[in-house]
């Protein structure tokens, strides 16, 4: 039996989504750019999917550009603005807890003569609007702050930053890879100029994403070639992927009213039970301003790696940070940014729930996790020392 608690890393494709995709591999395989009928039908299908994705964030269909994923969308948005608006200024504002697709892109631009301000966050991982205001300069061309953090689930004050950026006339991009399909997003009401998303984070396929770009914004392409995506992003459309992503977006948003309270209840049950059962544990991220399916907990005096392996023995799939860095497992830059010392950042576990998570599965984790922590602490010399000290204190 598998207990999948890593929905922030990727999600299972919904069966109805997979089913909708299949015919575009084997039957309707035409290239949407071709003129014959079966190809034209695919063109129509892609445009329908574009509409579904647009509707999910209250954008217009002609503001959606399909990409090969969230990282490409982030790269394109930031490098594109830097290049196309570089004559207006060379300053970019971002936060220090962004996904590496944003952080490393900014670091790359620094080597090309751009200046980047990395905003700090508070103990919950929240960016403050005041800090944004203070960081703005005459030559600021872009503010990019993530919608919700992939590790600790904290939801940033996007509408406030958006309103401020609009007022100042500065472009505002948000990496919403973790948020689309999980919390309501309205790019118009929130004054978002550009937004990145990824299909496989909301029960769609991997290898497809999109960049929303408000009408009127013109940035240079990242991928040059054919005239696809209104000449902004070359390459034959990933038709099955786009169809799957469109349907997945529609389904996820349609079910938000039901899924958000259900997942929030499961999340809080999981968090509260673990914090109650395990001493010296703490929640990372904001208690309420957080993604409905995200729990991130630090356990003092032990290593996250061992926890993950012992969870794996029990069939529980969890992670210690973002999957992209697990090849190296260095302490998370997000946990360090919210003020955790290295040792505590190491002993952290992220459990992310989603559409297919049941209460029974949550109960199973609540039952299996505390003894694992207990066992590891029994083997930890640090913990022994703490117990001894506490005893003396009594």
């Amino acid at each position, binding site marked *: 039996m598998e207990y999948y608690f890593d929905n922030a890393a990727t999600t299972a494709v919904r069966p109805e989504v997979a089913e909708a995709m299949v015919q575009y591999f084997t039957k309707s395989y035409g290239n949407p750019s071709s003129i014959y009928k079966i190809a034209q039908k695919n063109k129509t299908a892609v445009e329908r999917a574009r509409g579904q994705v647009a509707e999910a964030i209250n954008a217009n269909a002609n503001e959606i550009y399909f990409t090969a994923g969230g990282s490409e969308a982030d790269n394109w948005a930031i490098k594109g603005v830097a290049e196309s608006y570089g004559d207006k200024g060379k300053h970019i504002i971002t936060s220090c807890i962004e996904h590496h697709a944003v952080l490393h892109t900014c670091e790359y631009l620094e080597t090309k003569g751009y200046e980047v301000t990395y905003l700090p966050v508070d103990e919950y991982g929240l960016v403050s609007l005041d800090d944004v205001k203070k960081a703005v300069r005459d030559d600021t061309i872009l503010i990019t702050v993530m919608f919700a953090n992939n590790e600790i689930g904290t939801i940033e004050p996007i509408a406030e930053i958006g309103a401020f950026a609009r007022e100042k006339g500065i472009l505002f991009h948000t990496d919403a890879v973790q948020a689309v399909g999980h919390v309501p997003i309205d790019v118009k009401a929130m004054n978002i100029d550009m937004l990145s998303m990824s299909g496989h984070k909301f029960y769609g396929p991997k290898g497809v994403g999109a960049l929303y770009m408000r009408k009127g914004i013109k940035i240079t392409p990242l991928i040059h070639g054919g005239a696809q995506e209104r000449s902004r992003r070359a390459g034959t459309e990933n038709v099955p992927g786009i169809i799957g992503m469109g349907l997945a977006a529609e389904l996820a948003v349609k079910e938000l009213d039901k899924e958000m309270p259900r997942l929030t209840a499961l999340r809080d049950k999981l968090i509260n039970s673990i914090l109650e059962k395990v001493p010296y544990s703490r929640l990372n991220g904001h208690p309420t301003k957080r993604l409905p399916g995200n729990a991130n907990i630090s356990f003092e005096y032990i290593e996250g790696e061992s926890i993950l392996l*012992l969870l794996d023995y029990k069939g529980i799939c969890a992670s210690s940070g973002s999957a992209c860095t697990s090849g190296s497992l260095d302490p998370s830059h997000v946990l360090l940014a919210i003020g955790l010392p290295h040792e505590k950042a190491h002993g952290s576990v992220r459990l992310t729930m989603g559409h297919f998570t049941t209460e029974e599965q949550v109960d199973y984790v609540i039952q299996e996790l505390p003894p694992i922590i207990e066992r590891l602490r029994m083997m930890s010399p640090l913990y022994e020392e703490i117990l001894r000290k506490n005893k003396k204190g009594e």
Partner: protein
Amino acid sequence: MTKVAVAMSGGVDSSVAAYLLKEQGYDVVGVTMALFEGADEEGLCCGLSAAEDARSVADCIGIPHYVFNFKREFREKVIDYFIDEYLKGATPNPCIACNRYLKWEAFLNRCLEINAEYIATGHYATIVKHPVTERYTLKTADNKDQTYALYALTQEQLSRTLMPVGKYPKSKIREIAKKIGLKVADKPDSQDICFVPDGDYNRFIRDNTNVKAAEGDFVDREGNVLGRHKGITAYTIGQRKGLGIALGVPAYVTKIDTEKNQVVLGSNEDLFSKRVIVRDYNPMGLDMPKYEIRVKGKLRYTQPKADCVIRPLGDNMIEAVFDTPQRAVTPGQAAVFYDGDHVAGGGIIVK
């Protein structure tokens, strides 16, 4: 089923070790240690490419595979130690430090945490009980013997370790790897120090410390200045090549004096000595000697064993006196002593 965690480098030996244990009915878990990040991961033993090789091997033999991150421990216990010793004028053996602090400390402890009863490695040695003392010890392998680099293991560590390839010759191990279709069957043996793949220790130390190599004098045994050297870290005892000095006769490094920042040069005969002082002696097959005992000693990985006696000096120090003088006794290297085929114990050469 008994759970065993195999330290897998992605190479032939540890891959076959995992396979053999699985065949013997153990519940085998493969683990690769992430130890450092090189600029070029190609061919390094413990970078991410090693983890990928190990993962594909684990998949091929049907065992789970994990990566443990020990970069901090490796930095502190191996690289920093290596640099410190070099700066002190010694020639350290980082493989021994890695075995001791990484494989048999950090790795073993982590494996015990995840419910493994034993760890296993692909070393060429066999773990046995000494026939007389009944202490755990290592028996030398017929070829590719690696007992020299393992002398520091404690009784507790040995009791928790399996070395399944130790009883086979390397050719047999390659044959097994081929038979079970391991992609790594023809991978060359790892050479040299893994974190300095080009072998340029001097540059590595320069790049990793703020210490600027201070030039100093080459001197002869009497202290007469012969020329200038480019910093003591560039030299090791017994070295002849690359001294950048012509004296008309072959000159060898015979001593490195950190206090005076001098490198002493002499003839090949000057390199030979009978007496060796050893610190941090770890008794293995034989108890800490109480009086003089006759054993065989090995002062370098590549040197044959030579007859000698060892006697205790107290404070975990011992003195070894060889029957015939030994060449290039190098402070910082290990001295390992054997009782027949069994490791009696070993330590670090002081002088």
